[in-house]
């Protein structure tokens, strides 16, 4: 009997989670993790938050000695450059060719770059190395300009402000994170940043970047000129599909198309994490999610399927964003933002906005009410029926609206 080899391409939490769960599920073949970064897998969310403001420590899903102890070979600082699905092998930047029985592509995303915005003092944030450079320069910067008020832009703005740096934040949309949160909650976030001294410029973008004697001069779409010591660009990301796409794998929603079991269009090739555009049985459609929690759960799910289970991925999506002392969380999918049911008040900065359709919660966005998100996450795919009045009534615990699964499971 020959030993099976599972190759994981990608050095993020999806690959780490897959490695951990392969072993947990009793997979006793070879596991090789190929990661382009030199650091063993770590969590990316802290890079725009605690890593910048506190000690620059990486939060790791698995301790560095776990890999050796569990027979998982780490090939770090190595890039997978070619995929041969017929010959079941991956070509590496070292010139080697690595054969596999099963392959997991967890290649993630890379920052979308803005043409002409690069070089020293211009930062994109994805990796620990990126965050290390930004952290070092933030220490002496007096003024920074951030292009894009998405998650990265908003969180770096909050972190830089905490460090005493003056921030100018440009966002072409009318409010930060407007596409994710809607205009009303985006406006709450905008007020929070402005109160902390961030100069937010909604509806405005930067058209040119010039290097002056002491830093940068940015020209804006309104013709203003703004000075900054350093520039952070956070305008979204590009999925790293090339390895799979060049090998003929089907692409959808910008990512590698996978079914509910994580399988790509090529036999024995799976995909998980930010790069995977997965068919979600609960929604009956393909969704690509760029959030930490989904990457971890998809990695675990793919591992379970590789280890012989047949389990569709049908978990609820969930994300958080910490800015200043505020905790923003969301789960499920929001519908139209103008018909949300509010629990709590926007003005109090403690609220949850529910998307409610035909008596069922579809999704929720919450500021400083993480318990609501936990409760809603449990309800999303469970049978339930609630009214807008019940959701809005803060005296009625959300738990009370939940189907009583615990009692049933004990019966």
């Amino acid at each position: 009997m020959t030993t099976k080899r599972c190759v994981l391409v990608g050095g993020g939490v999806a690959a780490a989670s897959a490695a951990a769960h392969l072993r947990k599920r009793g997979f006793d073949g070879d596991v090789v993790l190929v990661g382009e970064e030199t650091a063993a897998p770590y969590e990316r969310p802290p890079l725009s938050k605690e890593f910048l403001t506190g000690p620059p420590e990486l939060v790791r899903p698995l301790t560095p000695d776990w890999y050796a102890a569990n027979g998982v070979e780490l090939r770090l600082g190595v890039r997978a450059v070619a995929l041969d699905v017929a010959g079941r092998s991956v070509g590496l930047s070292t010139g080697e060719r690595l054969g596999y029985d099963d392959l997991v592509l967890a290649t993630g995303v890379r920052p979308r770059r803005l043409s002409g915005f690069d070089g020293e003092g211009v930062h994109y944030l994805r990796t620990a190395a990126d965050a290390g450079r930004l952290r070092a320069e933030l220490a002496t910067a007096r003024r920074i300009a951030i292009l894009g008020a998405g998650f990265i832009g908003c969180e770096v703005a909050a972190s830089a402000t905490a460090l005493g740096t003056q921030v100018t934040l440009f966002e072409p949309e009318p409010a930060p994170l407007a596409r994710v949160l809607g205009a009303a909650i985006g406006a709450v976030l905008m007020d929070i940043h402005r109160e902390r001294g961030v100069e937010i410029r909604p509806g405005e973008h930067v058209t040119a970047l010039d290097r002056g004697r002491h830093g940068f001069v940015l020209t804006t779409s309104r013709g203003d000129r703004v000075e900054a010591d350093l520039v952070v660009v956070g305008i979204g990301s590009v999925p790293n599909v090339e390895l799979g796409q060049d090998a003929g794998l089907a692409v959808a929603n910008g990512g590698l198309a996978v079914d509910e079991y994580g399988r790509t269009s090529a036999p024995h090739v799976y995909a998980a994490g930010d790069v995977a555009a997965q068919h979600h049985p609960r929604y009956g459609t393909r969704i690509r999610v760029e959030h930490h929690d989904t990457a971890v759960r998809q990695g675990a799910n793919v591992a379970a399927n590789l280890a012989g289970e047949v389990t569709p991925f049908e978990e609820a999506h969930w994300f958080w964003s910490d800015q200043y002392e505020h905790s923003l969380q969301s789960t499920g999918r929001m519908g139209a933002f103008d018909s949300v049911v509010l629990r709590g008040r926007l003005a109090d900065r403690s609220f949850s906005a529910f998307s409610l359709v035909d008596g069922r919660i579809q999704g929720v966005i919450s500021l400083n009410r993480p318990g609501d998100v936990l409760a809603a996450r449990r309800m999303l795919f469970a049978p339930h029926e609630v009214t807008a009045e019940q959701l809005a009534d803060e005296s009625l615990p959300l738990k009370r609206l939940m189907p009583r699964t615990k009692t049933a499971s004990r019966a």
Partner: protein
Amino acid sequence: MTGQWQEAMQLDELWEGEMAGVEVGGEKVLLMNIDGDVRAYRNRCPHQAWALDEGDFDGETLTCSRHLWVFDARSGSGVNPDNCRLTSFPCRVDEDGTIRVDVG
């Protein structure tokens, strides 16, 4: 200094299936009542040290509200992820219903 049983709470204030964050001897402690058994843990998630008393306790598992890490309330061991564990403190309930914790 160990072996100091300090008063943390009265049992009749902590119903079955409930948890509470208290301070004992300068230490933030999470008390949990699991079907009548009381457990005491450091009130910090091993992930990023957020307080756990804002999380969700369904009577058996505790979910940290910040990043959804899940723990077995009775043993303190991680459920998801399973390679972690809550820091536990010795805990007892006196005959008069006083919950006492030894934070060391």
